[in-house]
């Protein structure tokens, strides 16, 4: 039994968790989310390099919530998103036990301080493909960038997998689903798609923990996470606020300090 399976088994046996949300073997060599509720089933749990999906997204799902106290197998990205969810009052820190997994080590994190320490010790890693695209984007002119995104987004049919896979897209009703007024064009045409993704990027600004889940969820292979990542980077640059590091962090965009730069105000 792996260390992860042992830990998960103990949590279930001791009643510290009623369900362990983790990764299990899926089809075609993929891994998939599994919900382990009995000690016998801990053998389903695996953790390796294929495990990148951010499982904290399931905490908002009512069916999962009804299973009782959850333990969650978390990548560093998922730990950051959990911290951000706590900061945004979506998760009560006492509700969740975290099995932070990183290659072969498993760390049990049960309180905000532990989560924060773990997040601090595991800084954001950008996958090389994403890095390459970001770098080439940085070299482009505004028109070239626009052309790049037009081409990429032309494949978007608004299945909203990016939103569904994002732990921080927890809105009760997404802005794009509102129709009084209709803020965002419903249609998946060029304008509607652009409106949706820009809206999402703006809503992720200062909140995106760069876990990469949206990009890997996209069935059309659009590197969609780059938009939110870039928005969050700007916030980090301007306000020194990085999401997913502190459980009590005030919202980056709606909190103010007396010495905030106001150079943009005329």
């Amino acid at each position: 039994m792996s260390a992860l399976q042992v830990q998960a088994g103990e949590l279930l046996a001791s009643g510290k968790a009623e369900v362990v949300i983790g990764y299990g073997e899926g089809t075609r060599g993929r891994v998939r989310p599994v919900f382990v509720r009995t000690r016998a089933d801990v053998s389903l749990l695996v953790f390796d390099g294929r495990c990148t999906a951010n499982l904290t997204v399931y905490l908002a799902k009512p069916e999962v919530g009804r299973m009782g106290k959850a333990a969650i197998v978390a990548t560093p990205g998922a730990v950051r998103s959990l911290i951000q969810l706590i900061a945004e009052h979506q998760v009560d820190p006492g509700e969740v036990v975290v099995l932070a997994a990183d290659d072969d080590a498993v760390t049990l994190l049960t309180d905000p301080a532990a989560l924060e320490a773990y997040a601090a010790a595991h800084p954001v890693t950008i996958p090389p493909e994403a890095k390459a695209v970001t770098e080439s984007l940085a070299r482009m002119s505004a028109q070239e960038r626009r052309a790049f995104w037009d081409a990429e987004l032309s494949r978007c049919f608004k299945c909203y997998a990016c939103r569904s896979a994002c732990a921080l897209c927890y809105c009760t009703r997404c802005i794009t689903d509102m129709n009084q007024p209709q803020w965002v064009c419903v249609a998946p045409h060029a304008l509607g798609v652009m409106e949706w993704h820009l809206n999402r990027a703006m809503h992720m600004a200062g909140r995106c923990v760069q876990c990469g889940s949206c990009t890997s969820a996209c069935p059309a292979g659009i590197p969609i996470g780059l938009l939110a990542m870039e928005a969050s980077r700007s916030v980090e640059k301007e306000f020194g606020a990085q999401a997913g590091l502190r459980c009590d962090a005030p919202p980056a965009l709606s909190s103010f300090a007396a010495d905030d730069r106001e150079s943009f105000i005329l």
Partner: protein
Amino acid sequence: MCSDPGQNMIKSAIKEKNLTGVVVAACSPRMHEPTFRRACAEAGLNPFLCEMANLREQCSWVHPRTDATTEKAIDIVSMLVAKVKRNAPLFPIKVPVTRTALVIGGGIAGIQSALDIANAGRQVVLVEREPSIGGHMSQLSETFPTLDCSQCILTPRMVEVAQHPNITLHTYAEVESLSGFIGNFTARIRKKARSIDERSCTGCGECVTACPIKKIPSEFNAGLGLRSAIYVPFPQAVPNKPVIDRGRCTYFQKGKCRFCETKCPAKAIRFDQQDEILDIAVGAVVVSTGFTVVETSFFPEYGYGLYKDVITGLQFERLLSASGPTLGEVRRPSDGKTPKNVVFLACAGSRDPAKGIEYCSKICCMYTAKHAMLYRHKVPDGDATVFYMDIRAAGKGYDEFVRRAIEDDEVRYIRGRVSRVFERQGKLVVKGADTLLGGQQVEIEADLVVLASAAVANPGAEELAQRLHVSYDGHSFFSEAHPKLRPVETNSAGIFLAGACQAPKDIPESVGQASAAASKVVGLFSCEELTREPVIAVVNRTAPPAYSTCAGCFMCRSACPFNAIESEEIKGRDGQILKTLARVNPGLCQGCGTCVAFCRSKAIDLQGFTHEQMYAQVMDLFA
């Protein structure tokens, strides 16, 4: 339109045509929206179903007379029609009022406000940071333009405060926080430990005499006199009870002494006294925390702090004052000699954009004239010279006063700026230019130089403003709600301003504003309930199971400048919490809309300016 016939036209149209909305295309809503809304209400239409299209400021006044202007006017009206179709009736909000006022700062403004409110029969809590009330006015010698003795007119007011049955006085106390909203504030007050029992203390002064530490620069005398570690700031202090300066007291510093305790006949010394925290419910707040003058480091070119005989106007007041360190004789600090040549520098720091104070400190022209005049009265053979930029004496009897100084008392006025004050062979030399003589360089030897230092906000004013949730300007003076029409209100409802904390002011102006603030408070307290405009933010509700589109992220909470965002739990029948939502406290919300802008879920709407209304109004342009 705003005339009676115009209003009647609207009223009859409402009745005859059974209107469900009205758009008045006229002038600024700021001016006449209440007029037209009242007219609608009188005709039985909810006043919030009336909108104004501002054709005056937004169209006819700012554009030439062209067809395009007419088209724009039509657009503006059409946009408002689109909006009014989506307006909903709104109803005023009633908020209970705690009819006790908090006055912060016991200078003349605070004293006046407190007395006016108390005399109107309402309770007042007056909080003063220093051991005594009185403020700067108690430090002044005579007052312009009548030259009556400042303390003589102030002391009776101070005593009245102390004795007034409706006033609770907390000196040596500070407001730590203010929460709540108009009519319903809670002020947390820290009463610093005075180290004496105020009830037993008789104010006999034995302790002060007994105190072995006597060489502390006196704040009251602007550093020109000395005081002891246990001290009463000045003889007429209210309350006339000493306070132990724990930072200077030997017992508190070294653990030994307690001479005062042994000498106190009333056994009133309390070394173990703790700070006391009081939570007081108040319905309104008057902020009258006053001002200060710029620090010494501000004028390296004038030698302030370097040369003992370069002093501030406030220090000169103390030299002139009968209760001052020289008992009213003008003696210079360096050697105690009577100065024969005194140079006064007006606008010392003020009106100097290069130094960051571009405003006029307002009082300096007058007090400099007064200083020069009083000096000439006390030292008739002395020469008084005033360097000035121009003279601002726009008050009743003010210009006459300045003329008297120039003409009767022969004060020499030189129009020009002083570039430097320096020492030459033991003498101070004031170097400046006489701009009336074509910028000719002037050098004057002086025995004493008096700087009319710029009046600036108190240190910590910003922090206090943040604690009170009132806004402040670039110079940290507290901001009034409207520079002309709401000069004593702040943007936080129920918090008013009096005196120099808002901007430099002289005594009559401070008193006037203090009474104005008091009348606002008394007006507010005239009803048991407060009626407020319902133009406030509201977190939406939707049908269960969602209950609201609010996701409870509370991004709005930190955005709200008025602390109006609370949380609210939606509970199921079994008491289980289904959802925690943001809730806007209708008493605190000022309807600024900041939360609306931040809400990702568009879960907050500003009543009267809802998303739908705004969207419709804007989209109408494209229709």
